[in-house]
């Protein structure tokens, strides 16, 4: 099975949704009383975060329908990149050089997965448990 480009784009949308959900959770956490269940239900950022997470899950399932797990799952790591960019530009957090290196490494890794999935070179392709 070949992975369709649309499936990869859907995972990237799921990444954006997950990242947005985490940002809403950050807003929610500021006014959450951990032991009070009512404070969860009346906490709008928390509810929005949940809905965003559920939408991300839905997008991911729809994407998996049209592609390989070994290609699509690694693309989920792009969430780390988005969260860091959001932290930097929305929350004005300082990002250390180490973290920028991490972000660049993840981006290179994801690109390699995408290149590798299109590789037709027989010498470097192998399978476990093939029929």
């Amino acid at each position, binding site marked *: 099975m070949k992975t369709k480009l649309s499936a990869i784009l859907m995972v990237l949308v799921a990444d954006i949704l997950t990242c947005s959900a985490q940002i809403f959770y950050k807003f929610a956490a500021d006014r959450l009383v951990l032991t009070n269940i009512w404070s969860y239900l009346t906490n709008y950022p928390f509810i929005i975060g949940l809905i965003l997470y559920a939408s991300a899950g839905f997008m991911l399932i729809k994407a998996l329908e049209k592609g390989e797990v070994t290609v699509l799952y690694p693309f989920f790591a792009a969430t780390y990149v988005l969260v860091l960019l959001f932290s930097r530009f929305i929350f004005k957090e300082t990002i*250390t050089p180490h973290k920028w290196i991490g972000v660049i490494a993840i981006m290179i890794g994801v690109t390699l997965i995408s290149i590798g999935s299109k590789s037709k070179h027989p010498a470097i392709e192998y399978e476990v448990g093939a029929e």
Partner: protein
Amino acid sequence: MITHWWAIILALISAVFCGLGPIYLKRGADKFRLHPKHVIKNKPLIKGIGLYLLATVFFIPALTGGEMSVIYPVAATAYIWVCIFSMLMLKEKMNIIKWTGISTILLGIVFIAAGI
């Protein structure tokens, strides 16, 4: 803070569940229809979601028993487990470029988790 050995084991168990989850989600996705009745009857999908829940159940105590810089990279081995399970259970192909990509992502997560 010292990272306890049991926290690393919990994170590793969580990572294995996290790696197995997408395999079942994929099997469920192939016959997915957005209707409560179909979702409940979609056994692989329910298994996949259940595995993610299990992963979370193991991950949270792991975080309490260890440093983020150790626990996160251990949890990130899920990217390796996903590939191994996909090869075994879904007959997907891996190649040297894809493994290099996985290693680079892991390295990136180590750098981010190190948080220096």
